């Protein structure tokens, strides 16, 4: 494989990993605070739909992004009310949210645009367009570094850079701020946080809210940057892959980046079966590449290769002692 093909492959890896990374970090905040979230998929889907339709209607992608975040936050609020306020089953709530998004997006899209549950194609200012980083054109012809900078690092949409910056930011928030310390504590031992006089409910709602914002950006990226418009079920299981990546990364921010890049690479390879054939000399079934993130996650969960231990208070509603 020559350098240019490799760069193209890595370039699409980055593109495909971005929504996974955003959703994965979203899940990280929620689950570190003790709220399991299998509704990542639904929030992304709802955000994808709202961002695309509002971006189309207003012609401004930034307003679309805000609308997408808003839609995702509404679902987050439902999840929060169900699993924090009413102490319901977090897993069942997540399942309900996924179905709610899958159904509502098509029903509303059909009545709004009457195009069989899609939004019209987005163009121009209604989409996130690639950004050329400074000196990219000038450096283009420098051997090795030039193509890497021009092809791989420059030329992505703004949200890709946002996603990458969110990783160190999350690391800093979780491990260097008081809020982060409390957030992690509430996922391990909420009673201790409560005893210290900090609101468990408040912290958990904050975490679920951050999760909503990040899922909203992930969904908006799908519909307004990766593709030009919303199509039915366009999140296509990415929320679940993000969940798998989160387990793979053992609920830590930097490993989230590597895990989502790995899963992004698998998706990129599934789109280019000819590349594998050429480099390896034999063909790998694309179905195997599709299933690989899930198989890897099962293996990790089973503790055959490293053990993934979730936050201790995850999944359990907190009941204040009387």
């Amino acid at each position, binding site marked *: 494989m020559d350098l240019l093909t490799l760069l193209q492959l890595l370039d699409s890896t980055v593109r495909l990993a971005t929504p996974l990374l955003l959703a994965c970090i979203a899940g990280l905040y929620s689950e570190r605070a003790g709220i399991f979230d299998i509704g990542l998929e639904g929030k992304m889907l709802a955000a994808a739909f709202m961002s695309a339709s509002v971006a189309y209607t207003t012609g401004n992608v930034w307003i679309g992004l805000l609308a997408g975040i808003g839609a995702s936050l509404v679902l987050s609020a439902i999840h929060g009310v169900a699993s924090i306020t009413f102490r319901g089953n977090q897993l069942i709530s997540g*399942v309900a949210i996924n179905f709610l998004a899958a159904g509502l997006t098509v029903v509303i899209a*059909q009545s709004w645009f009457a195009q069989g549950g899609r939004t019209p194609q987005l163009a121009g200012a209604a989409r996130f367009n690639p950004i050329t980083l400074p000196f990219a054109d000038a450096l283009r012809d420098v051997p090795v570094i030039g193509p890497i900078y021009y092809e791989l690092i420059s030329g992505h949409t703004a949200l890709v850079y946002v996603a990458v910056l969110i990783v160190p930011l999350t690391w800093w928030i979780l491990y260097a701020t008081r809020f982060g310390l409390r957030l992690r504590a509430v996922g391990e031992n909420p009673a201790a946080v409560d005893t210290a006089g900090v609101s468990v409910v408040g912290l958990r709602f904050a975490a679920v809210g951050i999760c909503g914002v990040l899922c909203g950006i992930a969904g908006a990226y799908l519909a307004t940057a990766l593709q030009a418009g919303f199509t039915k079920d366009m999140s296509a299981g990415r929320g679940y892959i993000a969940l798998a990546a989160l387990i793979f990364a053992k609920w830590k921010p930097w490993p989230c980046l590597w895990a989502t890049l790995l899963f992004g690479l698998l998706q990129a390879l599934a789109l280019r079966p000819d590349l594998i054939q050429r480099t390896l000399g034999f063909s790998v079934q694309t179905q195997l590449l599709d*299933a690989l993130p899930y198989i890897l996650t*099962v293996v990790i969960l089973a503790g055959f290769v490293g053990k993934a231990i979730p936050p201790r208070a995850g999944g359990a509603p907190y009941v204040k002692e009387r």
Partner: protein
Amino acid sequence: MDVMPKWADVVLIPVISLLLAAILSALVILAIGENPWNALKIMVEGSLGSTYGWGYTLYYATNFIFTGLAVAIAFHARMFNIGGEGQAVLGGLGVALVCLYIPFPHWSLALIAASLGAALFGAGWAIIPAYLQAKRGSHIVITTIMFNFIAAALLNYLLVGALKPAGSMEPATGKFLPGTHLPSFQEMFSTADTVLFRGAPANVSFFVAIAACVVIWALIWRTRLGYEIRAFGHSESAAKYAGISPTKIIVISMSISGALAGMMAINNVMGEAERLVLNAVEGAGFIGIAVALMGRSHPFGVFLAAILFGFLYQGGAELALWTSIPRELIVVIQALVILFTGALDNMVRMPLERFFLARRRAAKPRTKLTPAE
């Protein structure tokens, strides 16, 4: 301990949750500019107004009875089997292998063999997550989600490869052998003069589903194993103390669950399509969650809830046919049912409990005070 009378728990809460879901769905219909009352009329007319409609309603209900029972039995052991979809996909594979390669002299033999094949494959797919949960501590919800996707990829692989007949472009198996044809309701109930259930896919597997309800009821409430499953679901530590092996209960209840989900394939794969296609399950594995929650994990409740969801499915299809409301409205209704009966259960339960407590307090002092006076 019991704050509420049993009837309130079993009937009142599901009915209130269902009403809330119905009201919200009506609002959605209103919001997209259609008339909810009119929509309800079309749904009732289309699904219950003719034997044709009933034929479809009962066909869907058959699927949902199997997947609903599957989720319900796992609930009894306090496990959330979200993998019904994948188990049903594998069940379809089991049915296909039996029906493609064995020439059966009569459909009844084929039905027994196919049921066994479906149950074995479904159970096999559920045993792996169960074993991993029991022995390796991996969360069953996450592993069964992953297994849904792995099953989809596996089926995709087989249907574009080994199982596709030569020369065919479509990702599907060939037609099953003629001896495996299950009698449909039309063949069973029509007479020469009156044709009933014309063209509807409901078939003899509906009665297998009813039998499964009875068997599961007996299993849960009339056998030692059922007692152990319920005890384990009630309190794992108490069950352990009583000498019940968690590994055994987790593996057995999940394999029964998987077997039931897999057996759905005798209805949709063997009874209706008569060949294995991609996406034959059509989300029935997930609807099983709503059905089990609605039916309070009781086989009779599951039966009623499955009929209700059969009505919603067939009614939703009619709605999509006659109005501009897309079929996905039933996904919204399904989501609301899961949300209200599952996750927001306490929202309905808490005020009701307060109501019954207040009534009891109001009733008690009168009887106590009279002798003192």
